[in-house]
């Protein structure tokens, strides 16, 4: 562990904080809102204003996602509430160098959906002991956080039938054997980034 990990962070300093203008609390959220910085504030300072901003952006999306997956409006609303409460509760597991906030919220929503709609357990992989993250590398944070946007552009560029197939897979319209493995999306770069982080971690543990 480095000395940095032991020194307390000044209040409000998180990944990317201060690097951009944020409009926390305003109704209009902009596309370049730094969601990771907000979630880090929730994680490190139980910041309610940051939570509210995350809620306004993600809760309606989670609700839409669940309704597209077959949930009724009331159930979707209730589950979206659960997902956002989980985001608050499990914020300590969020690491902005590993996944974008959207990806992280997605995994919570997916698990809630399995619970609510299929009433089945979902086994999760063993959690890795990432340990306390010293000053996260800002370049790594940027890279992880921009992934959603980059993939969004790639998704938009796909031919409509292919895009629809991916959507149907994630909204539960396809059985697992109908899911096509070839997405046409540039997933290799994301895989390599995560792989690298894992190697670094194993090296530290080794």
């Amino acid at each position: 562990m480095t000395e940095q990990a032991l020194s307390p962070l000044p209040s409000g300093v998180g990944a990317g904080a201060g690097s951009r203008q944020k409009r926390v609390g305003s109704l209009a959220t902009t596309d370049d809102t730094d969601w990771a910085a907000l979630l880090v504030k929730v994680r490190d300072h139980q910041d309610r204003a940051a939570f509210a901003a995350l809620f306004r952006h993600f809760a309606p999306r989670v609700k839409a996602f669940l309704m597209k997956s077959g949930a009724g409006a009331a159930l979707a609303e209730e589950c979206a509430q659960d997902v956002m409460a989980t985001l608050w509760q499990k914020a300590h597991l969020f690491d902005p160098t590993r996944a974008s906030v959207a990806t992280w919220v997605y995994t919570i929503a997916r698990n809630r959906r399995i619970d609510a709609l299929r009433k089945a357990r979902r086994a999760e992989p063993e959690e890795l002991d990432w340990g306390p993250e010293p000053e996260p590398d800002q370049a790594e944070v940027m890279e992880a956080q921009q992934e959603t946007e980059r993939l969004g552009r790639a998704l938009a560029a796909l031919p409509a039938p292919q895009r629809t197939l991916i959507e149907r897979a994630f909204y539960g319209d396809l059985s697992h054997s109908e899911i096509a493995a070839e997405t046409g999306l540039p997933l290799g770069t994301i895989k390599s980034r995560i792989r690298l982080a894992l190697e670094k971690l194993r090296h530290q543990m080794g």
Partner: protein
Amino acid sequence: MTTIRHHLSDQLLMAYAAGQLPEAFNLVVATHVSLCDECRARAGSFDAVGGTLLEEADEIAMGEDALAKALERIEGLAQATRSEPLKPAGIFPAPLADYIGGDLSAVRWRKVGGGVKQAILPTAKDASVRLLYIPAGTAVPDHGHRGMELTLVLQGAFADENDRFGRGDIEIADEEMEHTPVALAGEDCICLAATDAPLRFRGLIPRLAQPLLRI
């Protein structure tokens, strides 16, 4: 740890990320990913696709008092303590140890003949998963598949006509595949096997015995 040579397919990893696998398959995937950084990274890239779809989803407005309710709710959660992450137990990675409720000594084996033992784990009925214990040097009961079968090696190794599978390796078999895996000499072989259709045992185990296997 030996190097894993046989991995999950993209199709399975994407279905896992999309949350569309039967519970029994989820367990095998999560157990392999616990042992395999390569598949953990690939699973993470498919999670990112889900994140992108969520981000791009049309918004559906929450109820008027939704935010107030949420803020009220987290008030009570503010002091929530961190839950202890699940731990591996012996040869079982954490997700499997969680299903079994302990290590190898907690498994309730049932003999199925020829020294082979199995333990069916409780899951949703759309697919089934069990632990198989195959004494070293013994042939795994020959079976034809209907549907898909995933076999993950946890201890020892087995080989079939085509390849060798050691700890962490996963074999994906489909309907067309007819094979005769044999547990290799050395340690007894323990596998986690999931299938989305009943198995038809032949060879070592008489066909009549099959209904007793509860697969």
